[in-house]
C-alpha cells in the first residue's frame, strides 16, 4: 500500500490553496469521507449545544446512555439563576426497548421528571437509534404535554440525518415551537433579541452590558442564560441581532417570517468587529440618543483596549496562526481578530463552513493561505509543518495534537474559561495568545527534540510520522 497521499484523493477538492489570481473554489457542505478521521460531530450534537443553555428546561435525551453522558454539562454556559440544564437526563434505552420500542420508557421518564421537578418545559432529544426504531416522539410529547399541562417539545436530532448544522436547525425548530404569539405592545424602547451567544464564560452578559449602556434593551439571548419564559416572549422584539451565524441565521429568518422581525449579522470578537457591531445596532435603532451613547462607549473602550493590546503586540509580532473551528463565521471573525493583533492566518479550516463563508475567507486571507473543509489530524499536521504555524486554534481534539507538535494552542470552543468577546474579551484573547505562544515550555521541545522547527527537515519528517 502506498503511503503517499497525505491528502486523500476524495478529499482533494476540500483543500484549497489561496491563489488570488485563480478563481478556484473549495468543496464543502458534503458528507465526510468514510474512514477519513473527520473531526465532525452529529445532528444531535448540534442541537444539544444550541439548546443546552436554556437554563430552566429539562433536557431529556431519549436514547442509549452514551449520547447523554458525553454531553453532560457540555459547555461552560453560565446562568444567572436556574441551573437545571447542567444535569444529564436520559432514558438509558436497553435492549428490550430497542426491540419493542422505547415510547413506553420515554413516557415513564417524563412522568418521573414531572413527579420530582415540575418543569415548565421538557425538551426531548431524538438520537440515532430512536430514529431507526421509529419511536413516535411527537405523539408522546403531545400526549404528555396535555396530561401534565407543560410543554414537552421534540427535538428531531437523530444523529445520522445530516451533520452538526442540521442539529442547529432542529434546535431552532424547537425554539420556534416554544415561542408564543406576538402581543400588541406600546414599548417605546428599542428592544432586541440577541441570537447565537451561549454565554460561555459569561460572554452574553458582557454584550448585554454594552447594550444597556447605550440604551438598548435585550429581550432574550438565545440561548445563553435564557429561560423558557423569555423565549416564549421572543416574538415581541423589534430586531434580532445574530452573532453565531451558523446556528442562528435560520432562526432569525424564521422569526422574520413569523413575527416580521428583521435581523442583522454582528460579531463581538475583536476590537474592530465589536466597535462596528455596536455602531451598527445603534444605527438600527434610529435613535439619536442611542447613537451618541454608542459613539462615546466605542471611543472610550477602543482607546483603553488598544493601549493594552499594544503592550502585548510587541511580543507577538511575526507569529502565524492555524485556525480550525466549527463554523465559517467564527473562522472569519478569528482571522480579523488575529489581524487586529498583528498575526496572520496561514491555515483556515472549518467543520461545517458554507460556500459564501469560504469565499469570504479566501478574500480575507493572503495568497498562500491553506483553506480546508472537514479536515483531519494528518492534513492539519502536514499543513502546520508546511506553513510553520506557531499557534493552533481549535477544539478539544486539536489541543493535544498542537501540543505534540510543539505548538501553542487557543481553545475557541465550548470549553473556554475566559470570555473572549467584546473589548474585555479582546484583552483576554491577546493575553491568552501571549501566554501560550510565549510560554517557556516550548523552549524545551526545541532544545531536546531539535528536529521540530527546521522547515526543510520537516518536509521529510511528515511522511515518516504518517
Amino acid at each position, binding site marked *: *500500500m*502506498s503511503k503517499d*497521499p*497525505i491528502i486523500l484523493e476524495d478529499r482533494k477538492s476540500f483543500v484549497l490553496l489561496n491563489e488570488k489570481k485563480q478563481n478556484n473554489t473549495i468543496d464543502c457542505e458534503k*458528507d*465526510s*469521507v*468514510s*474512514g*477519513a478521521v*473527520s*473531526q465532525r460531530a*452529529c445532528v444531535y*450534537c448540534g442541537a444539544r449545544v444550541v439548546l443546552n443553555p436554556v437554563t430552566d428546561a429539562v433536557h*431529556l435525551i431519549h*436514547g*442509549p*446512555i*452514551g*449520547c*447523554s*453522558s*458525553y454531553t*453532560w454539562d457540555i459547555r461552560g454556559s453560565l446562568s444567572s439563576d436556574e*441551573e*437545571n440544564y*447542567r*444535569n*444529564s*437526563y*436520559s*432514558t*438509558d434505552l436497553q*435492549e428490550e426497548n*430497542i426491540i419493542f420500542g422505547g415510547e413506553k420508557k420515554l413516557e415513564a*421518564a417524563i*412522568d*418521573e421528571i414531572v*413527579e420530582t*421537578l415540575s418543569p415548565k418545559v421538557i425538551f426531548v432529544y431524538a438520537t*440515532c*437509534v430512536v430514529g*431507526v426504531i421509529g419511536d413516535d416522539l411527537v405523539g408522546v410529547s403531545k400526549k404528555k404535554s396535555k396530561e401534565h399541562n407543560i410543554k414537552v417539545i421534540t427535538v428531531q436530532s437523530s*444523529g*445520522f440525518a445530516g451533520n452538526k448544522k442540521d442539529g442547529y436547525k432542529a434546535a431552532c425548530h424547537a425554539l420556534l415551537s416554544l415561542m408564543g404569539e406576538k402581543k400588541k405592545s406600546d414599548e417605546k424602547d428599542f428592544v432586541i433579541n440577541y441570537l447565537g451567544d451561549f454565554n460561555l464564560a459569561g460572554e452574553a452578559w458582557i454584550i448585554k452590558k454594552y447594550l444597556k449602556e447605550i440604551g438598548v434593551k435585550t429581550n432574550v439571548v438565545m440561548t445563553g442564560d435564557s429561560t423558557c419564559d423569555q423565549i416564549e416572549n421572543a416574538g415581541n422584539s423589534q430586531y434580532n441581532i445574530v452573532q453565531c451565524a451558523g446556528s442562528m441565521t435560520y432562526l432569525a429568518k424564521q422569526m422574520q417570517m413569523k413575527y416580521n422581525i428583521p435581523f442583522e449579522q454582528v460579531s463581538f470578537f475583536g476590537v474592530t468587529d465589536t466597535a462596528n457591531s455596536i455602531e451598527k445596532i445603534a444605527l438600527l435603532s434610529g435613535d439619536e440618543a442611542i447613537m451618541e451613547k454608542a459613539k462615546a462607549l466605542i471611543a472610550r473602550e477602543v482607546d483603553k483596549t488598544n493601549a493594552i493590546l499594544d503592550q502585548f503586540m510587541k511580543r507577538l509580532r511575526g507569529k502565524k496562526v492555524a485556525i480550525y473551528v466549527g463554523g465559517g463565521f467564527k473562522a472569519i471573525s478569528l482571522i480579523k481578530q488575529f489581524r487586529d493583533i498583528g498575526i496572520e492566518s496561514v491555515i483556515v479550516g472549518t467543520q461545517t463552513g458554507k460556500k459564501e463563508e469560504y469565499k469570504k475567507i479566501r478574500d480575507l486571507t493572503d495568497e498562500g493561505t491553506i483553506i480546508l473543509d472537514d479536515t483531519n*489530524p494528518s492534513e492539519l499536521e502536514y499543513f502546520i509543518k508546511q506553513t510553520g504555524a506557531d499557534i493552533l486554534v481549535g477544539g*478539544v*481534539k486539536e*489541543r*493535544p495534537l498542537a501540543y*505534540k*507538535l*510543539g505548538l501553542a494552542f487557543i481553545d475557541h470552543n465550548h470549553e473556554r474559561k475566559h470570555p473572549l468577546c467584546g473589548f474585555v474579551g479582546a484583552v483576554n484573547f491577546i493575553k491568552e495568545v501571549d501566554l501560550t505562544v510565549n510560554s517557556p515550555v516550548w523552549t524545551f*521541545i*526545541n532544545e*531536546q*527534540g531539535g528536529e521540530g522547527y527546521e522547515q526543510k527537515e520537516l518536509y521529510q*519528517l511528515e511522511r515518516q*510520522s*504518517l
Partner: protein
Amino acid sequence: MLDYTTKEIKERSALVVNPAKTCQPIGAMYAALGINKCLPHSHGSQGCCSYHRMHLTRHYRDPIAASTSSFTEGACVFGGKSNLSKGLQTVFSVYNPDIVAVNTTCLSETIGDDLTEIIKSTDLPEDKVVIYANTPSYTGSHVTGFSNMTKAMVSSLAEKVLETPTTTVNVIPGYVEPSDMTEIKKMLKLLDMPSIMFPDTSGVVNAPNKGKYEMYPEGGVTIDELKATGDSVATVALGSFASEAAAFELEKKFDVEPYVLKTPIGIKATDEFLMTLLSLTGDVFIPEELEVERGQLLDVMIDVHHHYHGKKVAIFGDPDIIIALTEFVIDLGMIPKYVITGTPGKRFEREINEMFKAHGLEDECIVKAEEDLMTLHQLIKNEPVDILIGNTYGKYIARAEDIPLVRVGFPILDRVGHSYFPTVGYKGALRLIEKISTAILDKYDRICPEEDFELTM
C-alpha cells in the same frame, strides 16, 4: 447545580439522572488503542466517534485517533456495508496502521450489519489485520465494551502453535490507567515472569512529547504477541467485568488456564496477584524490591491510620475498580457507606455484600449496581459521608455537600497525574492513602476552629 436533588428517594424505573456509566464503544476504543499500531474504527454515525474521541482526549490529554464509517441516512436504510468497506480501504491507504479494530455502535447493531461478512468481502492489503467487536450501547456499559474488544483480540488473533505451552503468562490488566499497566509490568518484571499483557495502553495514551505527532506511538501489545497468547501457560485476568471474557475464551479455545482476580488495588489484592503469579512460577519468595515496597506501604498505613479509620466513604465508578477499592478501604478501617456503579450486574452487588457481611457492615452500608449519581447524592443527603472516591463527575456532589473528592477511575477530566501515577500495586496503594489522608486533612485545616489549627497532625 444540584439544588434539585431531593432528600426523599423515589423509585425511578425509566429515568436516569447523571449517569455513572457510559456506552460500550468508548471502552472498545480504549482497549483497541492498547494494540501496537492499531487504528480503532467506529462503525456508525460520526457523532458517536467524535464523542468517544473527545472524551478519551479529555481524560488522557493525548491525541486519540479513530476513524468512523460516517453513516448517513442512506446507510441506515441500505446497511453500512459500503461505508465500512470504503472506510477500511481509506484507512489503510492513508493512515497505514498494522491493524484496525472495528467497534459497532447502537446504530449499526440495530440495523444489523454483519461485520464478519463485510470484512471478509472487502479487498484489503494482505499483510494487514482487521478485528471487530460487537458493542451495542444498549446493553452493559463502557466496561462491557472494553471486555468485548479484549475478547475479540484473542478470538480473532490467538493461535496455538506449540504442543506444550510456554512458561509465558497472559495478563489482562482491565480497564485501568496506562500508568497502572506500567506498574503491573514492573511487578511482572521483578518476578522475572515472561508475560504478554493485553491490551496495553502505556506509551500510547501517555506518550512522551517528542515534538512531533505520532499517530501510532511506540506502546501497545503487538499482533505477534496476541497470536502467541494461545500458547501461554495461563491467563491472569484482573477484574472480572473487564477481563474474564477474554481469559475464558482462551481457555475454551486453547485450554489456557484462567485465573480471575481482583484488580490489584490495595494491599490484599496486590498480595493475591503476586501470590498467584508465584504459584505459577513455583517460586516461594517475593523479590526484595517488592518486599520493601510492601513494608513501606504498611509503615505509612500505620503512621496515619488515625486519619482515616472510622471515616465514612462513598465509592462510585466502574465495577472492577470499586470492588477492589471497597476491599481496600475496609482494610484501612474505613466504612464504605455507599458503593455505586452504573454498570449493570447482580454479581457486583453480591460480591460487595459478601465483603460487607464478612466485616459486619451489612446493616450500615449500601451497594447498588445500575444506579446513577442522583441516587448516590440522595443517599448522601440522608446520611452524609466524610469522603467521596470516584471519577470527575463526583465533583458536583462534592461541592454541593462539601465533601472532599478523591479522583479515581474513568473519566478524570479536570486533573492531571492519573495517566502517569499508578493506583494498582503497593505503590498505587501508597498513593491512594496519600490522597485520601491529604483530602481529609485539607478539609479539616480549612474548617476547624482556630484553636485546633495546628502545625503537626
